[in-house]
C-alpha cells in the first residue's frame, strides 16, 4: 500500500481505519498519518531559537561578551580609567537599545506567526518571509556588533584575535544550528564543534576558548581514580 502526499505548506494529520479479512478473521488496523512539512523544520527551529532568547539583545551576546572582556582588560591595564570604561558601556547600551527594541517587535510577530502556522493558518512561505525580515534585522544588529568590536581591535590584536575589516559580511551574525544560538563565532574557520555541543577554537584563537561559555572550558587534569 502506498500513500502519496504532494507539496505541503503546513503539517497535515489524517487517520484511516483499514479492515482486512484473512483466513476468515477480520483484522482492524488504525493508521495515523502525520505528514510533516519537512522543509519548514529549519525555519521552525530558527524561530524557536528566537523564542528561547532571554531577550532580543541576546542575539548579540557573544559580540558583547568579547567586547566586555576587552573593556575589562583595557581597564585593568590602565589603558583607560573607570569613567572611560563606564562611558564606553553607556555608548554600547545606547547604540543597542533602539535596535533591540525593533527586534523585540519582530520576534513577537514571528512567534505569533509560528503559532498560526501550527494551527494551519499561516503558510510556510509566509513564515519564511517573516523570518527573512527578522534575520535582516539581526544582521543589522550584527553590523552594530562589528562596530563595537572594531573599537577594541587594538587590544584584541594583542590577544591574537584579529577579525577581517568586513566582519559581518565575512562571518555574519546568524542562528548557528550546531551551537543552538545566535553567534558569528561558530564558523568552521574559527574551530570545530565538539560532540558535547561545545566549540573549540583553533590554537591561534585559543584566547576565545577562555572568553565564551559555549567553548570547551579550560580543564584541570585529574589522574587519580
Amino acid at each position, binding site marked *: 500500500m502506498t500513500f502519496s502526499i504532494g507539496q505541503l505548506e503546513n503539517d497535515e*494529520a489524517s*487517520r484511516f*481505519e483499514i479492515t482486512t479479512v484473512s483466513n476468515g478473521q477480520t483484522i*482492524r*488496523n*488504525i*493508521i*495515523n*498519518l*502525520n505528514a*510533516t512539512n519537512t522543509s519548514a523544520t529549519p525555519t521552525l527551529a530558527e524561530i*524557536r531559537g528566537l*523564542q*528561547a*532568547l*532571554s*531577550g532580543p539583545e*541576546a542575539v548579540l*551576546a557573544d559580540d558583547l561578551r568579547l567586547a*566586555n*572582556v576587552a573593556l*575589562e*582588560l583595557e*581597564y*585593568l*591595564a*590602565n*589603558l583607560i*580609567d*573607570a*569613567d*572611560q570604561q*563606564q562611558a564606553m558601556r553607556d555608548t554600547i547600551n545606547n547604540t543597542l537599545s533602539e535596535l533591540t527594541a525593533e527586534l523585540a517587535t519582530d520576534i513577537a510577530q514571528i512567534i505569533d506567526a*509560528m*503559532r498560526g502556522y*501550527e*494551527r494551519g493558518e499561516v503558510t510556510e512561505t509566509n513564515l519564511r518571509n517573516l523570518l527573512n525580515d527578522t534575520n535582516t534585522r539581526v544582521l543589522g544588529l550584527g553590523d552594530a556588533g562589528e562596530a563595537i568590536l572594531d573599537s577594541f581591535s587594538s*587590544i584584541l590584536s*594583542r*590577544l*591574537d584575535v584579529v577579525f577581517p575589516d568586513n566582519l559581518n559580511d565575512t562571518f555574519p551574525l546568524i542562528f548557528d544550528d550546531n551551537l543552538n544560538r545566535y553567534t558569528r563565532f561558530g564558523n568552521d574557520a574559527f574551530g570545530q564543534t565538539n*560532540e*558535547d*555541543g*561545545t566549540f573549540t577554537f583553533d590554537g591561534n584563537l*585559543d*584566547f576565545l576558548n*577562555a*572568553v565564551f*561559555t*559555549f567553548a570547551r*572550558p*579550560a*580543564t*584541570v*587534569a*585529574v*589522574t*587519580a*581514580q
Partner: protein
Amino acid sequence: MNYITRKHLLGSLILAATLGTASHTHAMSLLSPQASDDNAKAVAPAALPGGQSDTVVLMILREGINDTIERENRRVPASEADAIMAELLADPATISVEKAGIVTTPPITQPGDQGNVSAQSAMDAFAQSQARGPLKYNDPLYADQEWFDPTQEHGLRLEPALDRLSFDRTIRVGVIDGGFTASVDMQYTEGVNLRSVNGNPRGPNFLNEDIDCSYVPPEFELSLHGHHVAHLIAANPNNALGMSGTTPNVELVAARSMNCGNNGLSPDIIDGIYWLSGEPVDGVDPISEPVEVINMSLGGEGACPAAYQAAINSATSKGIIVVVAAGNERDNADNYYPNNCDNVIAVAAHDTRGILSNFTNTGTTVDTVAQGSLVTSITPEGNPTTVGGTSFSTPIAAGVIANVLSERPGLSTAQLKAMIAESGNPVVEASFRPNLGAGSGILDAMKFLDAAGIPRAIVAAQSALQGERERFVEALSHPLAQNLLNEEVGGDACSLVEIDGNVLPNANPSDPLTVFAVPAGAPLSPTASNANILAQTEAGRMIVSTDTLDAFSNSQFGIARCDVTTSSNCNQVDTIRGFNPADLERPAFCTVAMR
C-alpha cells in the same frame, strides 16, 4: 476531568505515523530504578504490591472546546490496552494516548559515590574547613554543607550570595516526590497525596506517618527521598538544629506522587505539576496559591512524553520554573525524562572535588551542575547522614533559583537558563569520568546573582578578579591576557587590586580618589605630613598593584575622596576609609591554580 489551553501543547507534540493497534505517541517501559550495582536496597517496581500490573493507565489528551486540551487518565486491563488505544486514536479529537510509565526516585545513597577520595583529599578538605572562619548559621551540620562554603574551590559559594539578598519576600517551592516526613527542622506549608495505592486515598495526608505503608515488605526501606529533598531546600537555618536549607524564607509545598517505596506512575507526577501550578486535580483540594518553583528529583527513560510536556508548558506559561534531575544512570541524560523535556532546568551532579559524580547522567540537555555526592542531610530523628544523587543536586540548584526569584520575581525559564549559562565554573575533567555535556558547569551562586543584576556589596578594596569581573576570570587570566597586563602594569591580574570610591556615598564625586599610606599607629589621614600618596584618579574606581602596596611595609592604608592638597572635604566620617591588604581575599584561581 481537567483542561489546559491548547497553546501549551502546540509545538511539542509529534505524532509519528504508526500502523496497527500499538498506536501511541510514546511507549514507556518499566524501569529499574538504577543500575543493578547501584541499587542493592532499591525497591523494584514489581516488588511492591499495589502496582496493579494487570492493568495500565492510559494518559489521553484530546482537543477540547475553546482551544483547550482535555486530559484524562483511564485505567484499563493490560490485555486490552492496545485495542483501547487504537479505538481512542480513531477519534479525530484525540491528540495522543500514552501508556503511563513507572517513574522512580533513586536510592538516597549511591554505592561507590566518591569512594576514591584519598586521605590527602580528606585532609585538604578538613584544612579548608578550618580556614573558613566564622560561620553564617549556627546549625550543627552547616559546616559540613560544602555548597555554602565560600572557600570551596569547586563549589556553589552560597553563603556570600545569601548576604546579597534581602529575603523580604516569601517564595513558594513545590516538591514532587514521596517519602516526606514530619521534622523538627522544617515545616511543610501544605501538601497532598496524589498517589492512591493500597487503601491510601488521594487527599491531604502526604507524610509517611499518615500513610499506610505496611505493604512495603520489612526487608525494604521506607522512602525518605522527599524528606531529604525538602530539607535541602527548606530546612530552617540558624535555629541551632540540624542543617540549613538553601532558601531561608520559603514555603515548601509537598506533592506526594510516589508510593512508599520510591515508585510512582506518570499520571500522578503530571497531576503534581498541575496541582502545584494551581490547576484543579481530581481527588484533592486546590492548592492555596501556586508555587514559583517546582523540584522534580525523579525520572524515567525515554523521550519526553507529550503529557509531561503539556503539563510543564502549562506551568511555565504561568511563570513557574521547573527544575529537574539529570538522572543517575551514568548515561546520556538526553534519553531520560523529564530532563529532556522542553522548558525545564536540568541539573547534574558533582562531587566535593569538582569532578562529575560517579553516577550522574550528562548530556546536551543538562543546564548546570551542583553537588550531588556526599551531600549532608539529617535523618527524621535529627541525626546527621549523607545522601547522593542528582536527586539532591537538584534541590540545591532549585533553592538557589528560588533565592534569585525572591529578589527578581518574574524571571522566565529562558532568562534563567541564559543567566545560568553565564554562571558556571568548569567541572574538573577526569579521564575516568565521561562528560557528554554538563551545561555551564558547576553553578556559582555569586555569578548567578551577578547575571540576575543583584548587586554585590561595595568594598573599599578587593582583588581585581573578584566582584562582577569573576565572570571573565578565565579570559582575564589567559596567558595572553597575563602577558598584556605584565607589559602594561608589571603584574598579572592576580596582583591587581581595585579601589572603589563608591564605598564613600557621601563624598563629592567630583573630588579625586586617592590611595594613601601612613605609618602603623598614625592617624589615618591623607593630608598628614607622614602620608604617602600611592595612586590617584579623577574616576570613581581605580586599579593598583599589590607591589605598590607591598612597598610600604609596617603601614596602614586608606582611600580618600577629597582634595588632599587643600584638605577640602577630607574627614573620617564621609570621605576616608581604611583597608588592610592582608584582609583582601584572593580568588581561588590565584591561590590554587597559579600561586
